[in-house]
């Protein structure tokens, strides 16, 4: 079992990084009533852990017996019949799913699953609660229509079905949904907190950590606890006992983006742009999200630029990333950004060095 799953806190009392949030959530459980909740914060900050611990606190150990099922809905809209298949985890007390996997048909899924849970409400509630919990992941990727559908549905069936929404950024959740939920902000852990967690895991695994080793991993993880623990385990697999200056190897795709940045800075020519395009295709084919590529590329470029250029480059990165959201072919916008960067950078070099 990966350490990232092995040492995940299972109950709210064992949550260490967000003890204040966990204490607040425990009040909902003790008060026998739980409003709709919206967890938001960066990835790797512990949102899912808090949600699972909360569900276990509400329903007991039965909530851990989950099964994965592929559910199919046939929805008759009058003019045509849709068939939507989606994977979801369900236990006797809760259902967890990613409705945005259904693409533009996500609003039917959202409505149908809630109505279905309302219908299937247990007549004799053997569990301790009269309602079931529906966990919707990546709510910020739902379409506008689906979020509109969510508004009234979550009100109408609130006595039998409570929603726990989970997203990275609450900016993309409509105001109407946000105002019907209790917003729980889960910030990324600080580097000190990550160091504490790594030392805790090291102790459990009987490992000896050199001085500064955990701090280096924490700095490398960008305040992402999942990455920090995975880096830690990678270092253990690579070489143990740890050396005093050991560093976790970067992710493959990040290394690849670093090479792209070096290529761009070395030469600005159509031939080089063509080579970079091939590299972008390689990344996209391996399912790296295009916005992650662009952000990583920007970070690599900013490290090597003069201050004057930085303002201009981050402006164009924001511009092309916005265009990427509106369009459907990411390679167009990635390549356009590189072409624009090459143009600006070459002009800068010519003006500076003649």
């Amino acid at each position: 079992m990966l350490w990232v799953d092995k040492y995940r806190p299972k109950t709210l009392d064992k949550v260490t990084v967000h003890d204040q949030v966990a204490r607040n959530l425990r009040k909902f459980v003790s008060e026998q009533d739980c409003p709709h909740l919206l967890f938001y914060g960066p990835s790797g900050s512990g949102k899912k852990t808090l949600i699972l611990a909360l569900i276990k606190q509400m329903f007991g150990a039965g909530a851990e017996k989950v099964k994965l099922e592929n559910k199919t809905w046939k929805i008759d809209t009058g003019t045509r019949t849709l068939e939507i298949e989606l994977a979801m985890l369900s236990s006797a007390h809760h259902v967890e799913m990613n409705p945005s996997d259904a693409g533009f048909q996500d609003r039917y899924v959202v409505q149908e699953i809630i109505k279905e849970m309302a219908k299937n409400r247990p007549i004799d509630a053997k569990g301790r609660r009269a309602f079931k919990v529906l966990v919707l992941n990546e709510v910020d990727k739902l379409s506008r229509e689906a979020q509109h559908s969510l508004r009234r549905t979550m009100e109408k069936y609130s006595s039998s079905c409570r929603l726990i929404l989970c997203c990275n950024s609450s900016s993309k959740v409509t105001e109407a949904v946000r105002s019907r939920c209790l917003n729980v902000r889960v910030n990324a852990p600080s580097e000190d907190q990550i160091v504490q967690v790594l030392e805790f895991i090291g102790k459990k695994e009987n490992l000896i950590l050199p001085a500064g080793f955990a701090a280096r991993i924490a700095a490398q993880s960008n305040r992402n606890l999942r990455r920090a623990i995975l880096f830690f385990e990678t270092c253990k697999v690579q070489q143990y006992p740890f050396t005093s200056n050991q560093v976790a190897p970067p992710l493959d795709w990040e290394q690849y983006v670093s090479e792209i940045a070096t290529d761009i800075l070395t030469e600005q020519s159509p031939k080089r742009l063509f080579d970079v395009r091939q590299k972008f295709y390689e990344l996209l084919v391996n399912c790296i999200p295009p916005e992650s590529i662009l952000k990583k590329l920007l970070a690599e470029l900013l490290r090597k630029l003069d201050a004057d250029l930085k303002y201009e480059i981050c402006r164009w990165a924001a511009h092309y990333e916005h265009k990427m959201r509106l369009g459907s072919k990411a390679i167009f916008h990635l390549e356009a950004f590189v072409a624009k960067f090459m143009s600006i950078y070459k002009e800068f070099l010519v003006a500076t060095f003649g």
Partner: protein
Amino acid sequence: MAPLVPMSQPWVEKYRPRQVKDVAHQEEVIRVLNNTLQTADLPHMLFYGPPGTGKTTTALAIAYQLYGPELYKSRVLELNASDDRGINVVRTKIKNFAAVAVGTARKAGYPCPPYKIIILDEADSMTEDAQNALRRTTETYSKVTRFFFICNYISRIIEPLASRCAKFRFKPLSEEVMSSRIMHICNEEGLNLNAQAMSTLSVISQGDLRRAITYLQSAARLFGSSISSSDLISVSGVIPEDVVKSLLAACRSGEFDVANKEVSSIIADGYPVSQLMAQFLDVIVSADDIPDDQKARICKKLGETDKCLVDGADEYLQLLDVASETIRSLFNMPRTLVF
């Protein structure tokens, strides 16, 4: 099995006014509606205004006052955006309900006029085709059916439908109006709310009474019966002021890397950037030592960024762009590099 503690009702529903005259301080709307209710001759109605100002409450209160609780279920059809609202629904469900003859049942104490009511809540999310399909329906069955449209933006309702309705604009609630309502709820629930917390609640809810009541209930649940300003701020998702000020301070330093570090920290803390844009705008506009042309430049960038965020752009990149442009504005650097 221990008996369940009765589920607490959301205060938004518990304290929803049941009578038209109880709707808080939409005087023009209430006066006209009270007169209309005497004659029981309703036109089609169009309620519009910001969220949380009593539009749905007023529509439901009218229906209850006309029919009473028993006849309400059979005489009133309520549709929301959550129900499919394409053209097909208009052709079937709405038309079928509108065409059915009115029953003869009457209830003592209620006017029970000889028509039914269809309430289309959140009508601005109806498709244009669906709205067009409604035009003929509203005319053909106007003897036996009246329509209530409720929306946030009247511009989203097609002109032919809007012209068939009596329009009522619901204003955002002012602080003293909201205060009296909040104080009433505090007294009923046994809460202590000081003047500063009351003022904070008005500011963060921005005239939206539903939001204010929800924040109040959330804060009461988490922090007990004594509620302070910081408690309300923490449940509402509003960003603490020092975070916004530290972003501005990082921009004032004139160093891109300092601003980039601050932006990364804000993103890692999980603050919603659209909320940060609104608060940053307030800080910029109210700053005394920034000249007007610099303010204009920064505000223009904030407007563009807000649009990009609504389109779903990445928060880190957009916030970094705002910080970068703010630095360039404060130090009068040109908008486009020239070599």
